[in-house]
Structures are given as structure tokens and as C-alpha cells.
């Protein structure tokens, strides 16, 4: 809770935090809605425009803020203090990641408002129950990604640059603003290995009566992949812990 509280307080005074949850999602949503603003746009396409900007913001805060949970401590010179406290590292990172997720959820407010006020676009026919479960599964998958990326970014600084440079690619392969079924076969294979993809698919399915609605299978796939990410990251946390406590090299990486 302390990590959650401190991470939330720090976000209020950081310009980048407002960029991630407010400005960037609104810009992406605006582009999407202007592109869709032509005769013949279907309700399903509008839904991708309205929700897509929020999803982009949610993802952006997750991987930048929450994923840099350990890295930011290094930049702030507080890495050693974090490792000196008796609380396990993953608990601290979890608290910070949850703070990032709450902050990221705020992205939906300005983007849905833009869709409604600027383009008279609504999200029609929402199946509230399936939508809520799908959103919860999506949040769990984002949390898993954040927990997994945190030690990766700490161990290999260049990893953040690569993920940051490929940010738009994540939107593509997770189907944040259009269905992955429009991608070529190789793209759909990559997309299928990403936990958020299945949750996003279920989320959009809950806003339309068209197409398949295999919620149980999609939720199960997303949760299973998320668990795999978390298990894999546990080994990385041990590695990070060793670099910090035993060799003392983490701050030097």
C-alpha cells in the first residue's frame, strides 16, 4: 500500500504522467475518430475509435510507469534503500504497478468524452457483465506485463528503448484499435502469444452482437498467458535481487 500511495503521489507532479494518461490517448483517439468520420462507418468501427484511445493510454501508463518500477528507483538514487527494506522486491513493484494501472484507467475518461462530445460516438450494445469481466482480465494481463517488464528494464537498459520504439507495434499486435483478424497470418501468430490480445478481443466482443463470442476461451487464454509471464518474471526478480544484493552491480548496469 505504501508503494502504491507513494507512486500515485509522484505521478501528480510528473509531466510525463499527464502525457501518458491524458494527452497521448486523446491525440490517438482524435486521429482514430477523424479517420473514421466518413459515411459508411459501422458501429463496430466507431467502438474501436472510442475505446481504442483509452486502451492505448492504459497500455502506455502500464509499460512506461509500471514497467519502469525498478528503473525509476535507480534514476532517483533510491535503489539501495528499496533493497534494504525487509519487504520483498516483488511486493514493492506490485504496489507501484497497481498505482500505474489505476492511473492508466483514467485514460478512458477523456477519450470517451472526446468521442461523445466531439463525434457523437457512443459505445452501443454493451454487455455490461461480459465487459466488466473482460476489463478485469485485461487489467490482470497488463499487471502481468508490468511485473514482467520491470526486471527486464532494470537488467537491460536498452530493452526499454526497444519496447518504447515499438509502442505502435504493440497496439497492432494486441488489437487495441482494430481487430487482429485484419493482420496477415504471421502477425496473428505473434498476436496470439500476447496475453492482452485475448482480453481485448473479449472486451470488444462485449460491445457488439456480431462475430464470435467465445468469452470463456479468450479469458482463459489471457489468464494462462499472464500466469506464464509472472512465473517467468519470478526468475528475473531473483536475478535482479542477486545483482543488487550480492554483486552490487545493479546500480551500475
Amino acid at each position, binding site marked *: 500500500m505504501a508503494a502504491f500511495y507513494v507512486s500515485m503521489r509522484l505521478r501528480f507532479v510528473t509531466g510525463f504522467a499527464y502525457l501518458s494518461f491524458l494527452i497521448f490517448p486523446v491525440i490517438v483517439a482524435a486521429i482514430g475518430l477523424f479517420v473514421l468520420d466518413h459515411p459508411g462507418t459501422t458501429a463496430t468501427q466507431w467502438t474501436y475509435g472510442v475505446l481504442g484511445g483509452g486502451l492505448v493510454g492504459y497500455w502506455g501508463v502500464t509499460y512506461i510507469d509500471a514497467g519502469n518500477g525498478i528503473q525509476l528507483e535507480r534514476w532517483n538514487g533510491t535503489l539501495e534503500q528499496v533493497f534494504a527494506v525487509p519487504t520483498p522486491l516483488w511486493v514493492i513493484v506490485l504496489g507501484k504497478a497497481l498505482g500505474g494501472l489505476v492511473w492508466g484507467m483514467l485514460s478512458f475518461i477523456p477519450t470517451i468524452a472526446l468521442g461523445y462530445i466531439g463525434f457523437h460516438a457512443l459505445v452501443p450494445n454493451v454487455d455490461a457483465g461480459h465487459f466488466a469481466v473482460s476489463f478485469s482480465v485485461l487489467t490482470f494481463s497488463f499487471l502481468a506485463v508490468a511485473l514482467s517488464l520491470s526486471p527486464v528494464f532494470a537488467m537491460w537498459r536498452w530493452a526499454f528503448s526497444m519496447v518504447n520504439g515499438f509502442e*505502435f507495434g504493440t497496439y497492432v499486435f494486441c488489437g487495441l484499435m482494430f481487430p487482429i483478424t485484419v493482420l496477415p497470418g504471421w502477425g496473428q501468430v505473434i498476436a496470439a502469444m500476447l496475453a492482452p490480445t485475448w482480453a481485448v478481443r473479449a472486451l470488444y466482443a462485449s460491445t457488439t452482437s456480431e462475430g464470435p463470442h467465445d468469452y470463456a476461451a479468450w479469458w482463459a487464454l489471457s489468464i494462462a498467458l499472464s500466469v506464464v509471464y509472472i512465473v517467468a518474471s519470478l526468475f528475473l526478480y531473483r536475478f535482479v535481487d542477486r545483482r543488487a544484493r550480492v554483486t552490487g552491480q545493479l546500480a551500475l548496469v
Partner: protein
Amino acid sequence: MSHVSVYARSVWLQYIALFQWATVRGYVAYKVLLPVAQILFFVEFGVFATGGGNAIYFALGNALQLTANAGIFGVIATVANEREFGTLPILLGSPANRLVTFLSRASVNVIDGVLTVAIGLVLTAVVFRIDVSHGNVPLLALCIVVISFTTAGLGLLFGSLGLVMRDAIVVANILYYLLLVFCGINFPVGRLPGVLQVVAYALPLTRGVEAARQAVAGASLGDVAGLLAGEIAVGVAYAFVGYLLFRAFEGYARRGGLQDAY
């Protein structure tokens, strides 16, 4: 020391010390992966939203907008990094001609902007099999050079803010993405509300991208001369105002001893 040698030294030092992508990993991340991902995203989204026949519109627009990667991020970072590396007071304390020092900030990034667009266009041709060779390629090349200069002009204006602002790179991020909204990159400027169309034509890229699209369609230099002249005028205006701001902020910072206090 002559102005030419000051300019040359400043460009060289700026490249080796402040060009933030001068590593293989940094260049791959932001000059290869970012163009691939940005073009892939907007082309796929555009095809989803408007149909397969419009892929070239999105691919070309986003490939051209990549000039802002260098012209905005790169130029703004040259001042922001001076502050971060602690060399801003030294720079402001030097007697070198300010206009020469100021303009040298953009030089490497203009060249890099042209290279980035070239990478984007090659990727577009390879990944999406979009062929621009049937258009007026020399004119397209001229358009790319012009918009690389003009986006750097906008970068110089906001780079001046780096003298009095700690998070100038946040401004760079906002500008980069706003250009995607205003400049006819993913949808025609005419789709914006009237007031925002005025803003669009007050920004660099808008006319340059329009000229480049016409060049790809086979237009001649005469057809787009007005657009390119307007594009150049906008870029020069931003660079000029940026220089005035640079001098004003410099004076303010020097009087108060605030060169790196923000």
C-alpha cells in the same frame, strides 16, 4: 574564429555529444523500429477504417511525418541535453555568434530527418509493396528535404523553451503527436473544424505533405511551387521566432544566473 568554422565545430560537437541516437541500439529503436511500428499501425488502422485502397495515403503520410522524429525530438533534445549534461552555462557563457550556434542545433537533425523518411519509404515499399516510383521522384525528394528543414524550424522554436523549462521533452512528445492530427497525415485537413484548419496551415508539414502527395501522383514542380513556398515560409518564421525567444530567454537566464536552475 570565423562563423563558418564556429558553425562546423558546433555541428560536429552537437553530433558527437548531443545526438541521442548515436548508438546502434538507440538508432534501431527509434529510427527503425519506431518507423516500422508507426507506419504499420496507421496503415492497418486506415485499411480497417476506410478500405484497402487507401493504404498508400496512410503509408506516405506517416513516412513523411517521421521527419518530426528528428526535427522535433532531436532539435529540442539538443538544448534539453545541454541542461541535463551541465553544459548549458558553458554554452551561454561562450562569445560565439548566437545565430550560428542556434542554427547549428538543427543541421544534424535535418540530415537525419531525410534519412528517417528514406527508411520509412523503403519499409513502406518492402512491407506494403507500395510503389512511389511512378510519381515524380525528384520532386518527392525535394519535398522531403523541405519538410525536414521546416519541422526543424518548429523544433528550434520549442527547443528555446529548454532554456527555461525542465521537461522540454514532454513538449516534444506532444508536438510530435499533434502533427499527426493537424497536418493531413492520416486524414485530409478539410475534415478538421474551421479553426483547427487555420492551426493546421500555420504548422510546418501540412503544405509539404500535400505537395509530396501531389508529387507521388505525378505533379510537376510548377504545380506545387506555391505549397512548397508556403511550407518554407512557415519553417523560416518558426526558426526566426525561435531565435528571438532563444535570445530573450538567454538574457533572462544570464541576468538572474538561472542558466540551469529550472
